[in-house]
């Protein structure tokens, strides 16, 4: 199942497209010769459509079999893509391998047509919430300013422009009044919004969010999705690891189902079938379409009692 290119929301701005074009050109100088400098999203360059392309990636920890293997996936620009899988499916490993935080066993990762190390300015990562030290005495503004970090330069200080960008980003996630607060005083939802603001301040075009919805109540989760949705509409590609199926079904343009390997990938509505989910989660899950939303029911009893609905798969 390949992602549908037509689903891209609005694409990016002309400037984004041009800068990504330039980036693509560095990676593939031959094709660049034929393309005018300002041509946005030239159709003969399918790579331009993708913020992230992963080919045949395998990664894991030494002394263990690879946690993920044979991973091929694509994240189009301007789309919110849900990466779903059970605990231990390798979602975090995949993120870390994509970002180069762990060394892949094999495979290739391209962001905007370039190796990841050369596209760092365009990428932001939100680790799982407990990987961040919330007790460290930094303010909300300090954290958002970290998004402006570009390169290793001794004695560098934040500039006026950095501060303005950080305040604008805070405004966008509605945390301006909290700028001077110590981050540890924030609620769970506010913490995700601070990290999102950091990504915005960075001007990142590709966001990797690891379990951003964990532990959030429905209303707070909704607010966060709204912010992400807005970013996607502005042309940012967002890959969200989650095990919240309803969220992927209702809010993501595309879904990638992962369990050690990619089980399925494509538009959420097409991918989230009972068979795919059963294979991904290794147990029966029911997807119940209700009006314009999809509800996922994880119920052993329901699955056992209505095996016929699932096409008679073997009991999880």
């Amino acid at each position, binding site marked *: 199942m390949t992602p549908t290119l037509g689903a891209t929301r609005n694409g990016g701005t002309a400037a984004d497209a041009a800068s990504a074009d330039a980036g693509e050109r560095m990676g593939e100088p031959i094709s660049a010769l034929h393309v005018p400098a300002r041509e946005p999203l030239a159709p003969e360059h399918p790579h331009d459509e993708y913020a992230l392309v992963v080919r045949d990636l395998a990664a894991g920890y030494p002394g263990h079999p690879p946690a993920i293997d044979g991973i091929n996936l694509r994240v189009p620009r301007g789309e919110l893509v849900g990466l779903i899988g059970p605990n231990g499916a390798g979602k975090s490993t995949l993120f870390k391998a994509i970002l180069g935080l762990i060394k892949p066993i094999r495979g290739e990762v391209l962001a905007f047509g370039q190796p990841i190390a050369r596209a760092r300015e365009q990428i932001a990562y939100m680790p799982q919430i407990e990987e961040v*030290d919330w007790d460290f*005495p930094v303010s909300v503004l300090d954290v958002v300013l970290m998004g402006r970090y570009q390169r290793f330069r001794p004695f560098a200080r934040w500039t006026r422009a950095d501060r303005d960008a950080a305040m604008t980003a805070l405004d966008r996630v509605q945390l301006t009044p909290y700028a001077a*607060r110590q981050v540890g005083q924030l609620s769970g939802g506010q913490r995700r919004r601070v990290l999102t603001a950091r990504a915005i301040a960075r001007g990142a075009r590709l966001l990797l969010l690891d379990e951003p919805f964990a532990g959030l109540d429905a209303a707070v989760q909704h607010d966060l999705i709204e912010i992400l949705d807005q970013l996607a509409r502005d042309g940012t590609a967002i890959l969200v690891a989650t095990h919240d199926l309803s969220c992927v079904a209702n809010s993501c343009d595309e879904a990638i189902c992962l369990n050690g390997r990619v089980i399925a990938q494509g538009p959420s509505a097409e991918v989230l079938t009972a068979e795919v989910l059963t294979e991904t989660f290794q147990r029966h899950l029911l997807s119940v379409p209700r009006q314009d939303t999809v509800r996922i029911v994880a119920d052993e009893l329901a699955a056992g009692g209505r095996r016929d609905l699932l096409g008679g798969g073997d009991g999880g």
Partner: protein
Amino acid sequence: MADVVGWLIDPYAFTFMQRALLVLAIISVVSGVVGTFVVHKGLAFSGDALAHATLAGVAIAFVSGLNVSLGALGAAVFTALGIAWTRDRARVSYDTAIGILFVAMFSIGVLVLSTRQSYTPDLFSFVFGDILGISRPDIVGAAVLGFAVLLFLAAFSRELLFVAYDPAMARTTGVPTRFFEYAMVVVVGVAVVVALKAIGIILVNAMLIIPPASASLLVTRLPRIMLLSIAFALTSSVVGMHLSFHLGVAASPAIVIVACAIFLCAVAVNRRRGAVPSGELVAS
């Protein structure tokens, strides 16, 4: 009134008291700043381990006739790298590994000293601290090391904050996180050496921990914690030294006791205010 002024000023008629005040000022600034990281990054046990490990360097340098302070510095840096390596990739739990590393170093120190039959007052000044015996070269050494530490922290303040708060995103951004994780422990080791001769192996870690812990109960932003820590450390030093001078008790435990008293006051103030320091709250 004149009595009070005399109580405060008279001690400084002595050169050794002037030197003591100077070296305590250097120690207060360095340990206020470094100690803030120690307290907030869970390095308190590392600080204690680094202090004890210096005995190996001190003993080896003493027996082989080298500069004892340089021996302490070498042992501290070596142990710091060992601790950082342990945090990075050892398969035993972090505190277990440090527990083993520092008793090993301390044992080497005691072992080497046991080969000497004679009483060695120079060495005991390192163990218990000898503020009144601080020499001019000691002050110069502390100033140089202290300046180097502060320069490093100032140069890389952005990176250090980033790595302390969110190492994963820091690495994604291109910050050499592993370098800074090692460097931070080495910085703690050097800060220990700065205060070692004056405060002594046994109590030196108190200077790194108590003032920043007290300050953190009262303010929440990093620069303010550092400034308040320095103020607390200076106050403890001066009051402790006067108590020592006038009551004829050992100086470094007097300083530590005063620091502990300040900590208890900070706890009381913090409890009265409630959990959140009110000075930091912004209108929301």
